[in-house]
């Protein structure tokens, strides 16, 4: 090997800690980029493949009831590929004293033409048999196997069905129960039953849902409108194209999140690496300026010097990004597997994304090469004569040291050092700032989520239990419930939905009708309480801004009872899932009904289970939920989210550590003559360490002063990029988080000094002085 190349390797070996730190930053950036981006691609390909295999719907329309033959009518619309008409009803089953709501969907004798099922256990049912297919996750959760017989309660009647198979459906990759805060297999499942069987529940030769596939995706809206025209006479309840299909919409949101993070997060690392490579190489070149001058005097060309120092950053780039894309690929597989494991999907696809690898590799190579080039250019342009005169340590200019003359010498030395190499001080401060920004941008999710859940479960939902009825019930049932032993308070409520249409844009949203009471409060995201409005509706800001609705405006909307009109009383920011509110009496008037479909209860802790099981005996009761169970479900669902936050925190801290370690070590090496001199003068390692600690403390202080407000700002931006029309989380960072961040940054600053202090401790003075001479 060429001896100059040998020198590259020796240079790197001699400073392996620093090269490793910088390479690690590149590695992290590229690994995060490629693992997120590849996960995004894996997931997208997985969904698309599943959708293709199962003829996933393009359009869905729900209506009250229509003759089965309407399907033939719809099918005539130009551009439609297939139409499937079906009946969808609610039922429930009781498993080990636990009641779970089932969405019952009718299926034909053969696979449906739209939204085909993937049977993973058992069989698609035999003709006209009394059998049922269950969504796999639901069956697994309740330990229901193929061949088991389950009793399903539909509209007050009970049917016995044999489980013939376990399935997945493209419609329910994410299972979302309408107007529920959270959906878990504990309380909600999907069941497919033969069409003939559901017809017996008042739908003889009738359907209430159509699912449509089209040939050309661009014609969806037009076809939807034409189908709606046909179905108008049958009271359309809800409709959407595939972009608004609940499961698909949630998947899409997460996909976008993956994609966004894959760019946003690594940018930090690559930006830091630009500085890190520059600092490392500049330091290396400066310490070798004498060598460079001699080499040039011997006849080594500028070009060769430039290439020589480019090779150092080439090494950083190649090793960092090569390992990065490989680790990225592997962790993308893990991430894809872990993520799809929480979904309802029978498989996941992963492959080697050579294109993403290439992008990652090129990015991870180009970035250090660019800053390496700037540094190497300096080396090549070094004046031989200047280099030969020997590198004299930079003299100190720019700050009035006398101002600090009251401070001890070692403290003055620290301050002086900070001002001596301003570029590096700036970079160190920048590393501290970037670490704080990353930490706060991750922590904001924990804090905001924590506060939102606290608000939801300790303030908004102050009740212990809520009851949902099969339909609307009247006061006498409420009286009965109030008289149950252990029930302290009980209030009626209406939990329904509305669909508002505006200029071709339509939004469906939950509507809750409340009395004046204390168990269910309306909070905005600032923590202010709002009363149920005396008239009209309270709309969430998210919806009103989307549909450009203003206060006092009269809006028309679709309800389960047909089209209605009401005034918008107020518009507020509602945390988490957007909900609209009305006064119970007012809502009854608007809808033109009597009664209510839910009750919220405050129950003695000891009597809760008892009350729950007694309530479940009422034939009107669809389900009873304990708030504490829901809270538990949420925490369980959030575990993936917490792992995610943990990793980003870990990455943020590693980035900070790597870059601060790098600059601290460079700082010590650059000053070893000075440190050797001080040692010779009789300063102890402890005293020298003290100056370094002070120096890093000051650095940290500077970084914190800028980093905290900047981190606050970027946390806001990060959080906002995750807000959607499905949920919004009010922004909060707890004071303790700031304190912990400061402590963490300081600890990193001090720990990164340890190798340097050990070096000073074991430093052989005569070796250093000898090097000074040569």
């Amino acid at each position, binding site marked *: 090997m060429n001896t100059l190349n040998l020198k590259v390797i020796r240079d790197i070996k001699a400073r392996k800690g620093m090269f490793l730190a910088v390479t690690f930053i590149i590695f992290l950036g590229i690994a995060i980029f490629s693992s997120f981006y590849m996960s995004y691609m894996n997931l997208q390909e997985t969904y698309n493949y599943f959708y293709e295999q199962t003829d996933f719907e393009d359009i869905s329309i729900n209506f009250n009831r229509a003759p089965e033959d309407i399907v033939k009518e719809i099918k005539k619309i130009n551009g439609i590929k297939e139409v499937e008409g079906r009946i969808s009803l609610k039922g429930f089953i009781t498993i080990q004293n636990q009641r779970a709501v089932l969405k019952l969907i009718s299926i034909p004798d053969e696979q449906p033409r739209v939204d085909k099922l993937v049977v993973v256990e058992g069989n698609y049912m035999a003709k006209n048999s009394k059998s049922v297919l269950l969504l796999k996750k639901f069956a697994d959760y309740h330990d229901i196997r193929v061949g088991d017989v389950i009793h399903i309660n539909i509209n007050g009647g009970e049917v016995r069905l044999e489980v013939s198979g376990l399935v997945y459906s493209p419609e329910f990759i994410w299972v979302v129960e309408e107007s529920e805060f959270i959906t878990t297999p504990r309380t909600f499942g999907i069941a497919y039953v033969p069409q003939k069987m559901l017809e017996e529940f008042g739908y003889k030769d009738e359907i209430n849902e159509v699912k449509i596939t089209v040939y050309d995706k661009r014609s969806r809206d037009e076809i939807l409108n034409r189908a709606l025209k046909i179905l108008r006479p049958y009271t359309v309840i809800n409709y959407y194209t595939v972009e608004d299909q609940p499961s698909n919409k949630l998947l899409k949101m997460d996909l976008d999140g993956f994609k966004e993070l894959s760019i946003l997060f690594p940018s930090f690392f690559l930006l830091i690496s630009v500085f890190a490579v520059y600092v490392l190489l500049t330091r290396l070149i400066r310490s070798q300026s004498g060598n460079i001058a001699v080499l040039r*005097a011997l006849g080594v060309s500028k070009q060769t010097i430039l290439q020589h120092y480019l090779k150092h950053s080439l090494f950083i780039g190649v090793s960092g990004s090569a390992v990065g894309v490989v680790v990225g690929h592997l962790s993308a597989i893990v991430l894809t597997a872990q993520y799809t494991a929480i979904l309802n999907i029978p498989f996941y696809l992963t492959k080697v994304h050579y294109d993403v690898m290439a992008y990652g590799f090129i990015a991870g190579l180009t970035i250090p090469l660019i800053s390496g080039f700037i540094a190497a250019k300096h080396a090549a342009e070094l004046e031989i004569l200047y280099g030969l005169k020997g590198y004299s340590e930079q003299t100190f200019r720019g700050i009035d040291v006398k101002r600090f003359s009251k401070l001890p010498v070692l403290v003055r030395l620290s301050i002086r050092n900070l001002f001596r190499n301003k570029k590096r001080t700036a970079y160190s401060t920048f590393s501290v700032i970037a670490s704080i920004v990353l930490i706060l941008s991750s922590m904001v999710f924990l804090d905001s989520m924590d506060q939102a859940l606290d608000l939801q479960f300790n303030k908004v939902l102050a009740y212990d239990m809520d009851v949902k009825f099969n339909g609307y019930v009247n006061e006498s049932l409420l009286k009965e419930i109030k008289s149950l032993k252990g029930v302290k308070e009980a209030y009626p409520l209406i939990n329904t939905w509305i669909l508002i249409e505006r200029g071709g844009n339509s939004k469906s949203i939950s509507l809750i009708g409340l009395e004046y009471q204390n168990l269910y409060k309306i909070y905005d995201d600032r923590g202010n309480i709002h009363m149920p409005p005396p008239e009209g509706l309270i709309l969430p800001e998210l919806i009103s801004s989307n549909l450009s609705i203003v206060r006092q405006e009269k809006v028309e909307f679709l309800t389960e009872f047909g089209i209605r009109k009401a005034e918008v009383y107020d518009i507020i920011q509602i945390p988490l899932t957007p909900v609209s509110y009305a006064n119970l009496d007012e809502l009854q008037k608007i809808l033109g009904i009597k009664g209510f479909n839910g009750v919220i209860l405050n129950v003695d802790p000891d009597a809760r289970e008892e009350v729950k099981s007694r309530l479940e005996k009422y034939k009107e009761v669809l389900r009873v939920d304990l708030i504490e169970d829901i809270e538990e479900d949420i925490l369980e669902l959030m575990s993936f989210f917490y792992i995610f936050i943990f990793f980003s925190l870990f990455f943020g801290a590693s980035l900070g550590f790597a870059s601060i370690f790098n600059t601290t070590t460079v700082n010590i090496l650059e000053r070893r003559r000075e440190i050797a001199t001080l040692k010779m003068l009789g300063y102890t390692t402890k005293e020298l360490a003290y100056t370094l600690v002070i120096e890093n403390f000051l650095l940290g202080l500077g970084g914190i002063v800028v980093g905290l407000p900047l981190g606050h700002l970027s946390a806001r931006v990060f959080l906002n990029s995750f807000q959607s029309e499905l949920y919004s989380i009010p922004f909060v960072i707890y004071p303790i988080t700031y304190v912990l961040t400061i402590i963490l940054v300081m600890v990193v600053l001090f720990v990164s000094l340890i190798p340097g202090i050990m070096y000073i401790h074991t430093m052989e003075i005569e070796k250093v002085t000898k090097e000074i001479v*040569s």
Partner: protein
Amino acid sequence: MLKLDDVWKIYRMGVVDVVALKEVNLELGKKEFVVVLGPSGSGKTTLLNIIGGIDVPTKGRVVFNGLDISKLSENDLTLHRRRNIGFIFQFFNLIPTLTARENVMIAAELVKEPMDVEEVLGIVGLRKRADHFPSELSGGEQQRVAIARALVKKPPLILADEPTGSLDFETGKEVLKVMREINEKEGITIILVTHNSVIASMADRVIYLKDGRIDKIVENETPVDADELRW
């Protein structure tokens, strides 16, 4: 082989001009061992740097084997140094992460037909210490590595600026011995700069510099052996 024709070097320091070299005329032949002597600031290093092509004259011509190097481009100057010049400095400037042998190899790789690295290490008497790193060598040993590094390219001209400047008397003498040896055995012209007048007695010719001007040139009919130097 080398001819300097009315060479001037003026450093512009703001408004004041520092005249480092004035009206220097000089002619050197092959295989000569020349010592440049003069007090500090007299322009010795400047002269050497201009001859070696790491500095350019403000005025005048420097002709090396018929080639006017004062007119060369940056790139051609580099090539000139690569082929024709070996440098030895007061500060050895060895690469600390390369062994003695590797420090020599780095120069050997610059030319098509270098001398054998082991042979060169033998000449400077460093065969045994070839695998040591600079920090493990004494000052004299380090300077001998630097000499080997200059020699290995087999240049017709070696320029040495105070090569004994940071060495003690005994080590200095050994280094000078090696230099005289390669001058005689390899037929390489050597220009050695020093302000130590004792060293002048081992030269074929002594050039006295004073205030940037050649004060006098003295031919030495009977140069003494480096061994016999005393200071």
